[in-house]
């Protein structure tokens, strides 16, 4: 029996995604957000100070400062959006197996939101069909990961179960195999999540505090 995820063999060049890695990438994303936001705000303020008639251009600059972070947050939230074939005839059977893997509260939450909540060493995970969100300890940051099962014919709940089992075998290995898509404040991701998924993020934040 082993506790290393076998899929790690497919990404030998990647550094293992542990708590230090997540902290470092969280800071990089924070700095990156400031880097592409602050210059637009300063440019807008400068234009207004130099020439009030430049207000329309200043507004465009401010819009850039708003829209670009929103696009990144949208990209992050999109990792857990439903994707691929629904395979409706097989879904009830897959839902039964997934339900067996979850505790009572997590099962109810998954059925309402489509996301399986999993408490683990790095924080609290929300596992979707083709991606996962990790709310780190303290609930100040969410990391968004693109990761999926390789069989496209699987019903949605089986895709979630695939990711959940891999996560339970080796959490850091799971995060290493996944592609990191975004890190940012939970409120930024929450606004871009489908409405029915937001209670899952609220629950994960509460559990991570």
């Amino acid at each position, binding site marked *: 029996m082993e506790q290393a995820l*076998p*899929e790690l063999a497919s990404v030998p060049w990647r550094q293992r995604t542990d708590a230090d890695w997540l902290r470092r990438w969280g800071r990089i994303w924070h700095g990156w957000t400031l880097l592409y936001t602050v210059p637009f705000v300063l440019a807008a303020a400068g234009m207004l100070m130099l020439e009030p008639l430049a207000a329309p251009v200043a507004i465009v600059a401010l819009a850039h400062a708003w829209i670009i972070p929103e696009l990144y947050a949208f990209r992050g939230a999109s990792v857990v959006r439903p994707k691929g074939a629904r395979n409706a005839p097989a879904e009830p059977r897959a839902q039964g197996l997934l339900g067996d893997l979850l505790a009572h509260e997590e099962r109810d939450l998954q059925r309402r939101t489509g996301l399986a909540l999993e408490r683990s060493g790095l924080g609290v995970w929300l596992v979707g069909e083709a991606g996962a969100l990790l709310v780190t300890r303290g609930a100040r940051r969410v990391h968004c990961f693109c990761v999926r*099962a390789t069989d496209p014919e699987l019903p949605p709940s089986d895709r979630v179960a*695939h990711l959940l089992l891999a996560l339970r075998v080796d959490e850091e290995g799971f995060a290493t195999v996944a592609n990191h898509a975004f890190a940012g404040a939970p409120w930024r991701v929450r606004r871009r999540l489908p409405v029915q998924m937001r209670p899952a993020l609220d629950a994960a934040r509460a559990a991570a505090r």
Partner: protein
Amino acid sequence: MARLIRMDGTGHTTLAEWTERDDAAFAAAVSEFQDQTELGYIGTVPDAPGRATHVRELPREAELVIMRRPISGG
């Protein structure tokens, strides 16, 4: 009764069932497990709440062994 199941397009399929005392049933389950491994499936035992173990051989004492496809970054 222990079960070997595979997650697939039908939801899941029961491939084999065995008891600790039934050698023939366990041997058939081992054979099925090896066939699935050769097809690229990965054996996982959900052995405790929040925990699972990757297995390369079918553990006789496990109650449930799930064959899954590999995952990859999306």
